[in-house]
């Protein structure tokens, strides 16, 4: 029993203590999206910077983002979009004023999954450790 407790204690101490998204991000889409994976970082950037607004079959792309304060959004902004939050916020405000719809915001991972699962054309991101049930995985951002 003591040995078991010791092993469990060691496993607990040695377990990764970082946030779930430390394992990377999954780029997910609604199952109706016919795009053949993988989606490149350039394509992800073009979608979230509102430069590409339609999937190859002509259906509308609905990019989805997490709330501004979330750590996973900061990671996505830095790793996938290669931008900082302040510049990106200013950019989206300018684009919005010029008639481009900024990404829809969902405030939790379950909400993100549910939205992408439900809305045709939607694309979003979740932690790689989260089960991507009912959505299509387009790429993995390490």
């Amino acid at each position, binding site marked *: 029993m003591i040995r078991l407790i010791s092993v469990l204690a060691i496993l607990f101490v040695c377990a990764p203590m970082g946030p779930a998204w430390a394992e990377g991000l999954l780029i997910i889409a609604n199952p109706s999206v016919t795009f053949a994976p993988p989606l490149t970082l*350039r394509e992800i950037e*073009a979608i979230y*910077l509102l*430069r*590409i*607004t*339609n999937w190859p079959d*002509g*259906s*509308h792309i609905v990019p989805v983002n997490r*709330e*501004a304060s979330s750590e996973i959004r900061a990671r996505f902004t830095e790793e996938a979009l290669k*931008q900082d939050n*302040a*510049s*990106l*916020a*200013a*950019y*989206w*405000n*300018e684009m*919005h*004023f*010029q*008639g*481009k*719809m*900024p*990404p*829809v*915001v*969902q*405030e939790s991972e379950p*909400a993100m999954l549910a939205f992408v699962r439900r809305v045709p054309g939607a694309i979003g991101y979740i932690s790689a450790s989260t089960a991507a049930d009912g959505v299509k995985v387009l790429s993995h951002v390490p």
Partner: protein
Amino acid sequence: MSKREAGPRRRAGPRAYGLPTLLFAAAISACLPTRSAKADSGYELGHGYTVGPFNFAGYGEITLAAPDEGRKTVSLEDFSLFVTGHVNRWLNPFVEGELTHLDFTHSGPSGSDHGDGSFVLERLYNDFELTDSLTFRLGKMLTPVGSWNVIHGAPLVLTTVRPAVTYRNFSEYLTGASLIYTDPDGDNPGLEVYWQPDREFSERPNSITFDQYKMVEGLHLTIPLSLLDQIGFSYQRSQDSRNINQSLFGLDFKYTIDKLTLQGEATYSFLGDGASGHQPRAEAAAYLAGSYALDDIWSVYSWYEGFSSRDYAAVSHDLLAGVAFHPVPAMSIKVEYLQNIGGPPVNPTGLFASWSILF
């Protein structure tokens, strides 16, 4: 976007708080997101509300204008609502209506502006997305002369008082067609070519504009330097209300070095047929602005402008300095002082302040 302070057609007259004032103050309050709304809906200030393929948004600006001479006002400079739709490649409507120049209160001598407020149709168009990089736009839109005119929402621009070069001496609006090329990778220059066959649809009233233009055509080339920085070249040919033909050439830029952002615009217009003998045959203007971010929410800024109008032989020189507070990117509070340092005043010397929000 305060640009009426020195408006030559400003009307005057005494008035106090009225029902429209109270209604729009209430409307602004109602449109501001509450904490509970934010928590429930995932609303992000500045991004509007999305319902299906439509997004409902807008912006508001309340301005304090205290020129050394002339009427001092607290006014609703702009209250704008716009709807963006993305249904499919061929149906992407956009409409924007605005209440502008509504004085809450004023004091001082009468000028030429009652400040009663005007409803205007800013934009009404549809985008046909021909390809990922090519869009055909049909309707009423903003003309891409420089960058300030197409991103003129008060929370998005540097100062309360606009440099005159960003809105005078050219047609700000276009009713017609334009073809827009945008590089999906953002590496190559973008190009917009536009054409208005006759007059502007739903022209703004003379009390809030400097001139009306017709038969407008032009182009704008944008060379991206980074996400927000760019160099632009403008050309516009038009005919003003006195049937003077003009050809405008413009250069604009925005460049960021760490916490310092520089931006500017210069235009030169040749005035052709229709100009009378005593008028200048050309006019030119330029401004150069700098802003320095003290931290994430505070910044200081300044601009200088030299402006020549077809109506005056002398060049105006204005200098402005101010401080801005951005608690969030979609909201700003600005306080600034403008000093006319030579020539006939284009903007009046005095203190100006504004609170603006994109919602």
